[in-house]
């Protein structure tokens, strides 16, 4: 399902024609989606720098409440939107997946900031997970480091547009055999086990970044350590500077 796709059975042209005459028709679906999108309850869950911008978005100047999404819930059981705001490290990833599993259906995920999308600037870190979508599906990716509060608002409207296109009959969470709980990765000696969940994410066949710089970017040419005895002036005055 793509964004903006209204699957309603009433033709949109007919609808607008009727609206001109003062008749507003709405399907049950429209009401359903309207209710759902106007009261998105995000999980109060901050990871890093972007969390501060998330708080700023909830504060007076940007006022997330205008979108009906100001009610940050501290418990995943009461939330239906997870804003992954910041770097997901390997140490934190199991908890993020667990929180996702604990959220009731329907649940949505916004990855806020470059780090949670693909590792971002910290992509070379040993302990940094290269994208939370290795383990859980993501609805809206929001790049930026960090995205402005307005960008988060835009991301939420984007999510609302996605919710608008939902159909009750085809909603995933009413289907049989829906698999929306994902196995929680475990700590291994080198990193997480598994490295990704092939149900959710598959690696690219070729990474140009790795071909060119190695993965991660390592000290390509450095093999000799500096000799400390040979430099540094012993007569340097040590004291208050």
């Amino acid at each position: 399902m793509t964004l903006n796709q209204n699957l309603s059975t009433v033709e949109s042209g007919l609808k607008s024609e009727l609206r001109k005459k003062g008749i507003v028709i709405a399907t049950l679906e429209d009401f359903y989606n309207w209710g759902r999108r106007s009261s998105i309850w995000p999980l109060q869950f901050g990871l890093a720098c972007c969390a501060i911008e998330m708080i700023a978005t909830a504060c007076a100047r940007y006022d997330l409440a205008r979108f009906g999404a100001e009610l940050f819930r501290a418990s995943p059981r009461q939330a239906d939107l997870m804003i992954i705001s910041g770097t997901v490290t390997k140490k934190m990833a199991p908890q993020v997946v667990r929180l996702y599993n604990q959220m009731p259906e329907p649940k949505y995920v916004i990855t806020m900031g470059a780090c949670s999308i693909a590792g971002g600037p910290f992509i070379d870190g040993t302990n940094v997970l290269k994208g939370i979508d290795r383990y859980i599906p993501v609805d809206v990716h929001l790049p930026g480091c960090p995205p402005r509060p307005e960008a988060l608002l835009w991301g939420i409207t984007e999510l609302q547009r996605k919710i608008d296109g939902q159909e009750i009959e085809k909603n995933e969470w009413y289907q049989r055999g829906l698999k929306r709980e994902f196995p929680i990765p475990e700590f291994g000696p080198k990193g997480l086990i598994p490295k990704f969940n092939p149900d959710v994410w598959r690696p690219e066949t070729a990474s140009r970044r790795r071909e060119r710089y190695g993965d991660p970017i390592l000290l390509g040419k450095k093999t000799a350590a500096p000799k400390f005895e040979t430099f540094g002036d012993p007569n340097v005055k040590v004291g208050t500077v």
Partner: protein
Amino acid sequence: MNPAEIKTKLESEFPGIPIQIVGEGLLLGPEDLVRVARFLKESGEFKMNYLSSITAVDYLEHLESVYHLYSVDQRTGPVVLRVRVPRDNPRIPSLVHLFRSAEFQEREAYDMMGIRYEGHPDLRRIFMWEGFEGYPLRKDYLPENEDVLEWDDVEWLERHGVTVPAEYKQYAQDLKAAGKEARAERPKPGAEAV
């Protein structure tokens, strides 16, 4: 006070102690560290009662632990102490019982460089999890390649009811048969390094 003066002071206090001036700091043997630090902290002249920073540095042939000491009362400092230990058996006496500020910093140095601070009350990994192998800040550390599944991952996924695509499974099996680990690669020789 410059390093040379501190050195003469220390030599008169502890006759026969091997001290070498390296850079701005004094190079000590691991066995002398605690008594020198205690002397610097408690003597009325230095009163270096504030241990600002502990750093470990990997110099390939050896590991080094660098201490920056300041005096809060006299507002002097820093006195820089260095201790060198071999890479394969890095053991340094801990300073926690002298300076509480060493507690987390020594754990950090242990986690990142693998220096064992002997006498530390709670020497565990601080940032990485228990059971992690290797020390990420050593220059020879290679992280894993995160885009290929290894046999452990495949087994784990199948145990949790995830079907692994055949080509990933085959690759993991080949890796295991060859006895290799999927580690990150250094850039190819022709490629530009940073």
